[in-house]
């Protein structure tokens, strides 16, 4: 277990604890993400990966510990939530596009409402971010008219439109079949290449290996092992060894 939270981090967690009722889900989690870094969180189901990610964007309140994101003290009760969320983009497994709005409206909604951007400018932006995820032609489609992979890419575009400083992804490909998964992964790879800071929870070991600068392996609410992507091939703890072993078995 390492603890590295230098002052230059864009996201840093220090000794974060969180319980649901009597269940301790996060039990002293610490890690940090540098600007431009891609961090992958892996671990068994129920190990607290999603909870850790949700704490970063304050969808859950922590019981103890310190979280600083782009200068916002997320653990403090009076953090400015809306300012925080302008700096952080989050994408969930279940897309959560707004079904009653077209893709364009999905994307322009937040820039217009939150940043008071002019509609024409927002539409321009929508075109740009959709191009980034390769979906220009779906501007006027409704979410249900898209395949799962397209919906997920649109959801990423929607987050991008707020020009966040850091993006959080929670198993964004696990509802997709292999072909669509590849689509979405290509988009994320491109973002990484463009220098976006990202934290992603993922089950796809191959993807984590190929894209992450650093891996955080969670086990029973703790950061059990952390290091560069190479730890996946040469794990130092038996738990990680078993985990990646299981991962191999699955395929």
């Amino acid at each position, binding site marked *: 277990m390492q603890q590295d939270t230098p002052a230059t981090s864009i996201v840093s967690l220090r000794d974060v604890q969180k319980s649901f009722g009597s269940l301790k889900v996060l039990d002293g989690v610490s890690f940090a993400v540098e600007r431009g870094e891609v961090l992958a969180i892996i671990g068994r189901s129920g190990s607290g990966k999603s909870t850790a990610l949700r704490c970063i964007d304050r969808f859950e309140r922590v019981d103890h510990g310190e979280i600083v994101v782009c200068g916002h003290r997320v653990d403090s009760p009076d953090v400015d939530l809306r300012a925080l969320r302008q700096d*952080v983009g989050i994408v969930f497994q279940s897309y959560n*596009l*707004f079904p*009653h709005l077209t893709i364009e409206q999905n994307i322009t*909604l937040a820039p217009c409402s939150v940043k008071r951007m002019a509609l024409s400018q927002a539409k321009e932006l929508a075109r740009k971010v959709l191009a980034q995820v390769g979906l220009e032609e779906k501007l006027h489609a409704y979410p249900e008219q898209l395949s799962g992979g397209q919906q997920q890419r649109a959801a990423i575009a929607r*987050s991008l439109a707020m020009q966040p400083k850091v993006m959080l992804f929670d198993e964004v490909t696990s509802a997709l079949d292999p072909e669509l998964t590849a689509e979405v992964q290509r988009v994320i790879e491109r973002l990484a290449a463009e220098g976006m800071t990202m934290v992603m929870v993922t089950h796809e070991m191959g993807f984590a290996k190929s894209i992450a600068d650093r891996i955080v392996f969670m086990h029973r609410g703790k950061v059990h092992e952390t290091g560069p992507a190479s730890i996946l091939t040469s794990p130092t703890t038996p738990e990680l060894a078993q985990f990646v072993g299981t991962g191999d078995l699955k395929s």
Partner: protein
Amino acid sequence: MGIELDFPAVLERWPNFLGGAILTLELAFFATVLGAFLGTLAAVGRRSHSLLIARTCKVYVEAIRNTPLLVQIFLVYFGLASIGLKLSAFTVAVAALTINVGAYTAEIMRAGFDAIPRGQLEAAEGLALSRLQIYWHIILLPAVERVYPALTSQFVLLMLASSVCSQISAEELTAVANYIQSDTYRAFETYIIIAVLYIFLSLVMRAGFWGLGFVLFPRRRRLGTPL
């Protein structure tokens, strides 16, 4: 000799029937618009973080839903007069109907709100939208779309129920019918005619709501699928 049904003798009063039908529609229209507004507010209020607001809204909804409309109308009409407030029968009727249908709307809208998946709200929060913006952009329209059939039926029922406004001198369809039938003593003809008129009015309202839905839900118009 049995009962003679002489429809022409009653139908010659068609201008009165027409006037009554129009007033019924006007009552229904204003109460629908205002009631939808009030009910939505109450539904939002019931989800408020403030316990006082949430409780108040709940008491309002329960008090109205568990007492008859006629009693409510009497209490408003005579109650207001007792404290010296003299409003026209139409105003009082609209107010009472609004209060009544508002409670039912609140209950329906609440179900609609509850049907919005949590993920939608989290996605909206993640985009830094404010609470009000989330209600307005993310919750309201899908919630309304989901409960639209129930809302439609509720407002049609309101139109039918507006007949009790005759009691406080609003000259709607039932009032006109009562007037005509006590003037001519031709009760059967009159009641059959207003039954037909009411059925017609309810069809008109349903058509109206259908058309409104067409405007309100562009996604459904284009894709034809319910949410």
